[in-house]
């Protein structure tokens, strides 16, 4: 436990960040020019950090695997971004945003970090407006807000259904400006395959140029990972196809602890899987649950007839429908939080009431809303979502109820970081979804964008100075040092090993197998027996992968199968760690549901006495078990209570 130092500043929670800023070390402008920082990932966190650091005068190298920084998966966020502006005069404040986030995270987040997040949230909105982000406005010309799950106030700012896209374009434009000014050097189509440590400090990275296949070495005084989440470990998720764990995983293998890997968020309203060929799941906005009612048929005959397409959903009379959320949670009904709604859908489908061919779908019905509000109102509210649904499923949701099913959406777990966002490797930082810090065991809607930008614009630029102030005497590195040579050699060896396997199974087919194992044993509900079996299965899959994967072509060209293979190899190892973490956490909290830890009526049961800690895992070698370090969570302000939605 001695290895964990979260460096939380002293003082009351509302003064910690002020105190920190007052006391942290600064770097003089003429020295900033001599310091290099590598930023990996150009999503909200990465792009905002790279731009802000360059504005301060540091020399930044920014990397992404896409062809342009603008394509990072932050773009996919639809709903909005939270901030404690209280423009609506409805009682919001920094404290409330902080409180809602800690509570929404089921009390598994670090208070000090969350308070800081709430504090800087307002600056984010100011910053984005100044950059020309076209937020929705009211007729008076001022910013509009909408409400979102888990909050009783309207604090969500939005830009049509494209909030993530617009915020990222804001950060991307700031980044582009710095590229033009010469402060940022941009490296696109690069996969980071290793982090280089010199004397225990992060000093550079090894990347593969995806266009040419060349292995490149890059050095810097500090390395920042802003590489997103790892939902793709499940194969099917709402993540982009290229989203991957590899940079964070290499950091883990070099000594950075991995925090709470089992905390994954399953979003309740996605379009169900519709065939074995499916590559990706599409999210339908959570806002649909404001007016839609979720149900399955009460009796099995109806279910079977629906599957055989003998009857349609609308033929089932009202009294034969089971509105199971309204039945189980009369107080919140269809508006229970994401994790609760997802588990309830799984419970019904496991009991055999799923309404599509695969038995993995429930209805989201707008019949009552249309009768009550009229089709026009429903269309005005949800028209674009209905249209999107129809494009994909080819059914008209105004007539036939939508079919939905939960899908992996966000990962709260990630690289462990201290208050300064530094990992357990000095000089290596981790921001945004890639770190574990702010969302505990469950993230609230519209908080991911907030966290990414808070880390990049307003936290890291301060905290990294505190470290770099003592690096001003370190001259620029050359990459011909033995540490770089060795890391590059290791990467080359691994790639060559992969290429030499010449097995029989494609990367995708192995990735699908991994996804099945993860979903089966480490999905919405987990139990000891299943997790133990899952770990075994993953170990077998790992052996199978390294024996039988089939990668075509050569290493020295654009080779998408090789890219995928590199990523899947890391996902397999991560999967095992997730299962170990899930096995260790014998409580149910947020997105993590252990079947052994539930109340009599099947609700999640948290265990604060034994598990109010962050599980930080340390890599111990290829075949050794990782070591668990516990960072105890001290709640100085918020009182721990059980969430109740009945």
């Amino acid at each position, binding site marked *: 436990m001695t290895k964990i130092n979260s460096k939380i500043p002293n003082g009351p929670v509302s003064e910690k960040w002020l105190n920190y800023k007052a006391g942290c070390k600064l770097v003089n402008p003429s020295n900033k020019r001599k310091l290099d920082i590598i930023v990996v990932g150009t999503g909200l966190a990465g792009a*905002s950090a790279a731009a*802000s650091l360059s504005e301060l005068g540091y020399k930044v190298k920014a990397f992404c695997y*896409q*062809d*342009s*920084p*603008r*394509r990072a*998966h932050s*773009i996919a966020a639809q709903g909005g971004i939270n901030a404690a*502006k209280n423009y609506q005069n409805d009682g919001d404040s920094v404290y409330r945003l902080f409180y809602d986030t800690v509570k929404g995270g089921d009390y598994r987040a670090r208070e000090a970090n969350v308070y800081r997040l709430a504090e800087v949230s307002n*600056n984010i*909105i*100011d*910053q*984005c407006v100044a*950059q*020309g982000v*076209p937020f929705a*406005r*009211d007729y008076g*010309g*001022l*910013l509009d807000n909408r409400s979102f799950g888990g909050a009783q106030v309207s604090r969500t700012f939005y*830009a*049509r259904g*494209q909030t993530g*896209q617009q915020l990222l*374009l804001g950060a*991307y*434009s700031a980044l*582009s*400006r710095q*590229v*033009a000014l010469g402060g940022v050097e941009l490296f696109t189509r690069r996969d980071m395959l290793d982090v280089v440590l010199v004397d225990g400090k992060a000093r550079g990275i090894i990347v593969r140029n995806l*266009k040419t296949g060349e292995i490149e070495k890059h050095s810097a005084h500090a390395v920042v990972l802003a590489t997103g989440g790892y939902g793709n470990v499940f194969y099917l998720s*709402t993540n*982009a*196809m*290229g989203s991957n764990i590899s940079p964070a995983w290499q950091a883990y293998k070099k000594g950075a602890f991995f925090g709470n890997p089992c905390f994954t968020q399953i979003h309740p309203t996605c379009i169900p899987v519709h065939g074995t*060929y*499916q*590559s990706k799941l*599409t*999210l339908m906005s959570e806002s649909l649950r404001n007016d839609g009612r979720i149900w399955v048929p009460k009796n099995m005959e109806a279910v079977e007839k629906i599957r055989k397409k003998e009857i349609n959903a609308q033929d089932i009379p009202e009294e034969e429908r089971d509105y199971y959320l309204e039945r189980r949670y009369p107080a919140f009904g269809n508006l229970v939080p994401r994790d609760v709604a997802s588990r309830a859908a799984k419970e019904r489908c496991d009991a055999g009431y799923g309404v599509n061919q695969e038995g993995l779908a429930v209805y989201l019905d707008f019949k009552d809303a249309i009768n009550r509000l009229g089709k026009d109102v429903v269309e005005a509210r949800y028209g674009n979502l209905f249209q999107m649904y129809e*494009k*994909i*499923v*080819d059914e008209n949701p105004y007539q036939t109820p939508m079919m939905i099913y939960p899908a992996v959406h966000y990962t709260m777990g990630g690289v462990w970081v201290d208050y300064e966002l530094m990992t357990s490797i000095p000089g290596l930082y981790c921001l945004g979804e890639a770190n574990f810090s702010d969302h505990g065991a469950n993230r609230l809607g519209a908080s991911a964008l907030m966290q990414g930008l808070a880390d990049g*614009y*307003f936290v890291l630029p301060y905290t990294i100075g505190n470290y770099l102030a003592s690096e001003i005497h370190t001259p620029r590195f050359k990459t011909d040092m033995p540490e770089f040579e060795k890391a590059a050699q290791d990467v080359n060896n691994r790639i060559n090993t992969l290429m030499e396997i*010449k097995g*029989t*199974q494609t990367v*995708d087919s192995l990735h699908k197998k991994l996804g099945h194992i993860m979903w089966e044993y480490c999905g919405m509900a987990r139990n000891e027996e299943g997790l133990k079996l899952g770990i075994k299965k993953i170990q077998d899959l790992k052996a199978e992968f390294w024996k039988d994967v089939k990668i*075509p*072509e050569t290493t020295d*060209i654009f080779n*998408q*199968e090789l890219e995928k293979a590199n990523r899947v190899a890391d996902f397999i190892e991560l999967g095992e760690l997730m299962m170990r973490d899930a096995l260790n956490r014998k409580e149910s909290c947020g997105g993590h549901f252990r079947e052994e830890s539930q109340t009599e009526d099947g609700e999640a049961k948290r265990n604060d006495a034994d598990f109010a800690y962050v599980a930080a895992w340390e890599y111990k070698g290829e075949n050794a078990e990782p070591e668990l370090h516990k960072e105890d969570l001290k709640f100085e302000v918020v009182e721990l209570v059980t969430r109740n939605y009945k």
Partner: protein
Amino acid sequence: MNLTLKIWRQKDSKTKGNFETYQINDISPDCSFLEMLDQLNEKLISEQKDPVAFSRGDCGVSFDHDCREGICGMCGMFINGRAHGPDLGVTTCQLHMRKFKDGDTIVVEPWRAKPFPIIKDLVVDRTAFDKIIQAGGYVSVNTGGVPDANAIPVPKNRADEAMDAAACIGCGACVATCKNASAMLFVAAKVSQLALLPQGAVEAKERAIKMVRKMDELGFGNCTNTGACEVECPKEVSISHIARLNREFFLSVLSS
């Protein structure tokens, strides 16, 4: 569905490319175009037994894709003579096979434009777009030290119009479909968005000149107002924004 695919194959930017014909059977009409290509690749890779052909790359077709929900702008191919295929208002990843008929022959080509060199098969290099944005597609503000978000009211209709322009995802369909390979719609979307907002209006003049100059330098063609770009744009960005770009451009030249 059973389909015949004629797909452009090209090893790298220097090698000459050619069309290859593939047969693919039992495709579900409910799957997306990219999922259909996934299945083709799965088949090509697992069936390719000849080690020479295998290492030479006569198997999987390379294509760009990422979010697969129509927002990242990474995917894009010319399908049967149309950018992003026959459907309107969608990217390639949102195009579904039900838009085709059993037995169809589908011709798939990469975006073709001088500033978009081919990297491999259907993958093109669109860094030209980044360079245009770097030339001026931003508001010159540093992090911090900005006024309160509500300090400057913006009329709702202007904010909405700015959002219409900002919806551009930079996929390059406008360039691909334009008979002149012009990037005017892309440039106009950014210039128009920022010119409409008071925050961006400060630099509106220099921005228009710089971005247009960069666009010309990179070798994009000239707009002849055919309007094809707005029809194929997956985000339906209107050519009215091109008119605004022209206006901004003339005004800035006149006043400089």
